[in-house]
């Protein structure tokens, strides 16, 4: 069974009508994943005995019996969770992330865990202890990252929807590279309890799916207050599907010139085309400036790496996970376990973050970055005083080749230029397919003010209805 031509509504109807049982759906999904994954390697763990929940209520729960992919940095009780790292290669959780508890309550089916860059650090899913994931549109290209496994699983039709996480673009960039929709909600909209921390002030769980509505359905389930996470807002969660099917007349749409200047050629054209469509439909287009855009990459890499350097200290070989053999003393356990357990990119960021927080560097690096972050937030606040959404490209280029950038960290980091700001500002942002550039998908990014996912969905749905990108089939899967 593959989901290229399915969505949650169509599956829900089939299940409700008894056209297929949830048990068969689970089995067929696993079977297809095993087959498809020979090409794309989108999964770290596949549960061959995956079973749906009991007493399924298809009328009440839209997700009942529908397999959802889970990124492997989200804690699943009794299902191995590795964050694609050697250091957690054998880690079996004893509790569920809040998003998992909520999906369980909604009776979704769990079939396994998807590949990613180790600890979500990367933009290509090449930095995985379990090997790189391949882009379903072209197997020689990366799927983006770090939620590259989730994105490829959705794009290839292995599942209808997936959970990802986004610290600097890790949902939106792979969504763009794979021609699917992906949303990073407002920081504080979805509980981080059970999300393996990377940059705690930036991390947010979100959803990826071919169709905009499917992400709205899943987000409806996973969003909302949680006693386990003090940074989640108490705000009431609207029905995100209620923002779909609307027109955009009078909607104030800001287009940052720094974002449009970052793209050229076909990429520029395909993005401009979406803006024109909005304009033609009566949206008010305003060119704006985000003057601090040039500082976002260094700011982000200091903040995220600093937090990561602290968050990743708990992987010390003492209580769980990988422990090096032949150690002589405590220091040896720490040094060897961590040296052998972490990959190069993770180590690079731990070093960077540890330095930025060290006594001699703190003021010039971490503190300065925190200050610049405040300025970046103000840029956005100012724009949202007179605009409802900000739009532009999600990435400067479509997917690059596997192995092309992996040895050039700075080039890799610059991939995140257009997605990072939303994390620094804590605002909701999504990527919806805009079209093809050189035969590879390009993403159109939509951002709105904090807790206004509604307008993001509204615009994304409008773009989707207009360009019907979902009708296209990934080109890399034919034999």
């Amino acid at each position, binding site marked *: 069974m593959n989901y290229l031509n399915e969505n949650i509504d169509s599956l829900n109807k089939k299940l409700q009508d008894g056209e297929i049982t949830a048990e068969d759906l689970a089995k067929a999904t696993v079977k297809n994943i095993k087959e498809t994954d020979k090409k794309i390697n989108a999964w770290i763990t596949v549960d061959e005995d995956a079973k749906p929940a009991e007493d399924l209520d298809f009328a009440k729960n839209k997700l009942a019996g529908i397999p959802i992919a889970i990124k492997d940095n989200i*804690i699943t009780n009794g299902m191995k969770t590795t964050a694609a790292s050697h250091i957690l290669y054998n880690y079996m959780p004893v509790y569920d992330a809040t998003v998992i508890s909520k999906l369980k309550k909604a009776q979704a089916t769990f079939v396994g865990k998807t590949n990613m860059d180790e600890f979500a650090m990367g933009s290509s899913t090449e930095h995985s202890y379990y090997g790189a994931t391949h882009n379903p549109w072209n197997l020689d290209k990366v799927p983006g990252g770090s939620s590259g496994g989730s994105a490829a699983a959705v794009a290839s039709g292995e599942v209808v929807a997936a959970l990802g996480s986004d610290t600097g673009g890790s949902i939106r960039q792979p969504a763009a590279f794979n021609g699917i929709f992906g949303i990073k909600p407002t920081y504080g909209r979805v509980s981080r309890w*059970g999300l393996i921390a990377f940059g705690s002030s930036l991390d947010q769980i979100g959803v990826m799916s071919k169709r905009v509505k499917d992400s709205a359905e899943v987000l409806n389930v996973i969003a909302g207050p949680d006693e386990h996470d*003090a940074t989640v807002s108490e705000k009431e969660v609207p029905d995100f599907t209620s923002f779909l099917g609307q027109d955009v007349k009078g909607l104030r749409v800001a287009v940052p010139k720094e974002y449009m200047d970052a793209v050229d050629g076909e990429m520029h054209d395909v993005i401009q085309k979406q803006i024109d469509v909005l304009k033609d439909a009566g949206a008010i287009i305003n060119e704006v400036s985000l003057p601090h855009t040039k500082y976002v990459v260094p700011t982000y890499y200091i903040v995220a790496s600093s937090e990561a350097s*602290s968050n990743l200290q708990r992987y010390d070989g003492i*209580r769980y996970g990988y422990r090096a053999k032949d150690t002589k003393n405590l220091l040896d356990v720490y040094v060897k376990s961590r040296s052998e357990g972490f990959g190069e990119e993770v180590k690079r960021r731990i070093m960077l973050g540890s330095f930025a927080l060290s006594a001699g560097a703190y003021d010039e690096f971490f503190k300065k970055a925190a200050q610049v972050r405040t300025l970046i937030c103000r840029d956005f606040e100012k724009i949202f005083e007179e605009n409802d959404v900000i739009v532009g490209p999600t990435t400067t280029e479509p997917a690059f080749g596997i192995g092309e950038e992996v040895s050039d960290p700075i080039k890799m980091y610059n991939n995140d230029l257009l997605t990072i700001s939303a994390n620094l500002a804590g605002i909701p942002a999504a990527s919806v397919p805009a079209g093809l550039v050189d035969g590879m998908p390009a993403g159109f990014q939509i951002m709105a003010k904090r807790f206004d996912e509604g307008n993001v969905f509204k615009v994304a749905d409008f773009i989707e209805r207009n360009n019907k990108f979902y009708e296209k089939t990934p080109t890399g899967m034919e034999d």
Partner: protein
Amino acid sequence: MNFKSTIGLEVHFELKTKSKIFSPSPVSYGAEANTETNVIDWAMPGVLPRLNKDVYRLGIMVALATHSHILPVTHFDRKNYFYPDNPKAYQITQFFQPLARDGYIEVEVRGKKKRIGIHEMHIEEDAGKNTHGANGYSYVDLNRQGVPLLEVVSEPDMEDPEEAYAYLTKLRQIVQFTGASDVKMEEGSMRVDTNISIRPAGQEKLGTKVEMKNLNSFDHVRRSLAYEEKRQQQVLLSGGRVQLSTRRFDEATGKTVLERVKEGDADYRYFPEPDIAPYHIKQSWIDEIAESLPESPFERRKRYVEEYGIKEYDADVILQTKESSDFYDAAVAAGADPTLAANWLNTQVNGYLNENQVGIADIKLTPEHLAEMIKMIKDGTISSKIAKKVFKESIENGTDPKKYVEDKGMVQLSDVSVLGPMVTKVVDDNPQSVEDFKNGKDRAIGFLVGQIMKQTRGKANPKVVNQLLNKELQSR
């Protein structure tokens, strides 16, 4: 050459919350290793701290009781270091913006009052406990991981070990009376680190600091500081230099022993804890806590001396612990005469506690029973001699004094209609005593009282018997 000492103290108090500061695990003392832990305490991947806001309330109580300035916005920070008893490899503490600053307490040393400054106080989590087995393995117990602590950092205002001792005594008393902590050093709910430097008198610049950690009694604090003062003087007088170091007090020898030399400060890479939002402490909440703050030891002392009229010394003895002061207040509230209650508490009760090495909370005597017994003494129902028996019974077996006295027929015999004829008969039977009395021998009356006591098996009220005897003898 004369030297001047500069002493500062860092005191950790365990805050008395039901659950840990960042996890719902219970807090108790002496549970089996690792039974009071959950995924948060183990720093499993993906967990987040869940702040127990009660720590702010308890911390604010101590801040108020020490005249400290409470910061309007406080937040937590991470202190990063690796150790197996520190599972996250960072401790959540308050580094940049502590709960409160600039407080003070007043102490009296050798009859002189002195104000000792409190630099700051901050809330943090405790670490677990490592033990090293004989088999070459080390063990980690995370029960203590995440127990809330309040660290009170003094100004370096103390100039000799006696002042440090007085500061600690007062600080413990103040904290104990707020109810924010159990302040038991033996259970680790109060822990003391000290630092001391000396310099030649007249020199402005402070000398090199030596730290001493985990001292387990106030006496050790005093003795270790006194030893350090002398040791550092000798080092300087012999032309040496004091090393920036941590030393340990060795109980057996009474000396301090070098643990490690410090080479610059460790870099803990402090930064704001992103998982817990900054907390705005509203003045209205502070006011509310101030309003409900339990009576301080100073206020109680004033009440005891001025209202109850008991001696200052007795008041101070009662106020040594909150438990004894609470016991006293409860006895007085139950109708005990304040002076008698103070006497009984400070002599008989304390005597029993010392003899049996127990605390006041562990005994069977209730304040109500003590009050009842004192009332019976006061109204003449029992003699003080009988009272001692009653007291023994109550404190050992928790027996109700009134019931005991009644059951055992220990009620004092004061009835004149009963005692009168007995007195007449005794006088009649002992003409020699009447003769002696007339000849001015007071001893005679004692003999007659003894006869009555014998006949009543000690129950006769001696005062009444004396009166009756005097009257009877005068009339002969």
